[in-house]
């Protein structure tokens, strides 16, 4: 056997230099043998053809005029134009809340933070936007950065709990801003939820669906793992029932049957809220099953150690078990949130005007007949952008928390 010192001098056993050249890379990854070469050629031809067809459609056939003409509808549905400033106010606050939460959770201005900060600035480059929109986006970015820097002077730092409170507070404030409080007149007249639509409604449904179904799902998962038989049976029944039926049946049930279950004088909850309740109840069952996976991955030793330290059941769960269990299932949970976001499109079938519902009304409009391809492609892309961003972010978080490494 030769020693390492010997081989380093011997050029013949050095790695081949073609490893680093483009040609070498191609030979290894595209043309390693005859079969592979044939596959490459066929695949390249198919890709070329598809790209050509798509480009030709996008550049010549497609009538993109339908998008700018209905831009406001796509973005906010029937939300009155003179009240649109309230949406921007909510977005300013969102920017501020994200900045503040970043300060409270992470405390550092990392690359990821920079990317998040750059999102509103990048959006300003979308050619469709007016100068007002660009100004608003600038303020959003500014609010985020401002909140992040001012957050450093807060007495509380590095507290996830505080961040959660900030988020919950924001949910309430945002609802008040969007819905209004002063009746028909006054500074913020009421905008009934049925007027909310487009991307605004899709995002709101997803946002509230995720934040509200998550605690319910965790509670159900704990219930399913509980030692108390009554609680376990109730949780299992609920989870299995919900997982066994399609979401659309729950949504329809919410629209047709909810008033049957409520007393006569009960103020009838509005249609958007009914849909949201159905989404939350549905999603919670799936979240519960995902969280259960995490709970089952915690070894008995953790429970026993916590008990030995004299922690109560509540403290064991909150401080020992849940943090580990949730960390283990982040990717699955994000997957679940993505599918919740995608599932919000189903509200279009019960007469709400979310992104898909609005798209359907636009294509049904006699002025824009035959524009289904353009409109639905844009809708699909909008959904794709949000979903893909979420899954990308989850991969990043996964790496940072070191899931699967420890």
């Amino acid at each position, binding site marked *: 056997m030769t020693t390492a010192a010997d081989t380093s001098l011997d050029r013949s056993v050095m790695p081949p230099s073609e490893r680093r050249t483009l040609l070498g890379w191609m030979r290894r990854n595209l043309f390693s043998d005859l079969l592979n070469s044939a596959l490459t050629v066929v*695949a390249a031809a198919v890709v070329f053809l598809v790209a050509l067809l798509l480009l030709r459609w996008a550049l010549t056939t497609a009538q993109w005029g339908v998008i700018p003409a209905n831009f406001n509808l796509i973005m906010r549905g029937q939300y009155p134009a003179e009240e649109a400033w309230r949406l921007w106010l909510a977005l300013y606050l969102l920017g501020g809340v994200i900045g503040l939460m970043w300060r409270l959770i992470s405390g550092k201005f990392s690359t990821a933070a920079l990317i998040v900060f750059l999102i509103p600035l990048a959006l300003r480059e979308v050619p469709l936007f007016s100068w007002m929109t660009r100004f608003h986006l600038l303020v959003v970015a500014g609010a985020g950065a401002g909140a992040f820097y001012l957050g450093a002077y807060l007495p509380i730092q590095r507290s996830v709990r505080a961040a959660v409170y900030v988020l919950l507070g924001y949910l309430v404030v945002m609802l008040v801003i969007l819905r209004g409080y002063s009746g028909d007149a006054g500074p913020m007249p009421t905008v009934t939820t049925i007027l909310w639509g487009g991307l605004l409604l899709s995002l709101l449904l997803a946002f509230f669906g995720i934040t509200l179904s998550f605690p319910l799902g965790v509670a159900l998962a704990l219930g399913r793992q509980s030692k108390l038989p009554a609680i376990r049976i109730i949780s299992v029944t609920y989870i299995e029932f919900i997982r066994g039926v*399609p979401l659309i049946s729950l949504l329809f049930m919410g629209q047709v*049957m909810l008033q049957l279950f409520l007393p006569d004088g009960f103020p009838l909850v509005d249609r958007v809220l009914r849909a949201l309740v159905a989404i939350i109840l549905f999603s919670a069952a799936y979240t519960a099953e995902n969280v259960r996976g995490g709970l089952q991955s915690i070894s008995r030793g953790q429970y026993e150690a916590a008990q030995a330290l004299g922690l109560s059941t509540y403290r064991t769960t909150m401080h020992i078990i849940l943090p580990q269990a949730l960390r283990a299932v982040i990717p699955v949970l994000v997957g679940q949130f993505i599918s919740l976001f995608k599932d919000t499109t189903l509200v279009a079938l019960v007469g709400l005007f979310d992104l898909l519902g609005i798209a359907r009304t636009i294509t049904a409009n006699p002025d824009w007949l035959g524009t289904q391809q353009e409109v*639905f492609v844009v809708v699909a892309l909008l959904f794709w952008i949000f979903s893909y961003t979420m899954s990308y972010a989850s991969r990043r978080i996964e790496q940072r928390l070191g899931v699967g490494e420890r």
Partner: protein
Amino acid sequence: MQEIHASQIRPPFYRDERVLGIFTQVLVVVVVVGLGLFFYNNMITGLREKHTVAISFSFLGQVAGFDIGESMIEYSRERTYARAFVVGLLNTFQVAILGIIFATALGIVIGVMRLSTNFLISRIALIYIDFFRNIPLLVLLIFWAQAVFLKLPRVAEAIVLPGPIFLSNRGVAVPWGLPTESWSTYQIILAAGLVLGAAVAYFLREQGKRTGRMPLITLWFLVTVAAVGLIGWIFLPQPLTFDQPVLEGFNTQGGKILSQQFMALLSGLIIYTAAFIAEIVRAGIQSVSKGQREAATALGLNPAQTLRLVIFPQALRVIIPPLTSEYLNLTKNSSLAIAIGYPDLFAVAGNTILNQTGREIEMFTMIMGTYLSLSLLTSFLMNVYNRRIRLVER
């Protein structure tokens, strides 16, 4: 001095775990039962005020009085609601079973492509997976229905694919077998072929267990069935005649016409579900550790044997559970048919029948009961299967 034993110190009742446990359970049960009673009470009083009819399923025997676009069994508007419900159910089964078969095939292909060493192939698979996993199924379905199948040319200018298959805005016309008189005999022969194939498979399996050399059971099973089928085809005078669609004026004649709605629903479900199945297949194959492959090679197995006897059985253990739930998802997702006008279970029962009769509670009980029993049945079979293939540790 008297020793105090630890078990003698009892905590106060409000900190005693058993007391707390019982108290919590009673509380939860009271709240849940109370809520249930509250809802039930409201429903009963509400029903009494509105309909003055109690809950009853007798309306199912009444004449439905509406048409259904497509049906696998004989149906007309003079038939009963119960019959209409069954039509919807069968339509759901039809689309679900076909969807499962094709989505599995496409998903396996894309999942294997994803693992290809060929950069271009694996990139194409990645783009496919990342795209279709991140758009809503409903958008895809409506896109297929309104932006693809609706935009096909008129029948006179139909796109003709080899077969011949005619693609037009009236649907897809495909060649279809027409049974002749000997068809029923041929069916019996085919069934006999299946039995014979199963017997051969069983025999080979037993022999394989005895000798330790497993033959290619599935292959021999298929060969037996095909051989019997072929012999029957030769000896019987043409059990099926192939009816090819032809263009006649403004319509196609003959063959079978698959409706636009059906095709849109099926293709949407297949394309969407295949992306998820591909990820499951990829994860399954990757879950088999490299050592297994190396060990198999060291034992002298050739690559095909390694795949069949070592990699595949182990990958299957990881693949099957999520795959089943994906099948269930596809079945439940087929209820989105309502958006594109395909008369599946939910569209017929949850929309048409419900609107006509106003029987919300009965109809929703039936719909949810059907989906629920389907999914409980699947998860039961799943658990049985899981127990059989589970890794037995120590």
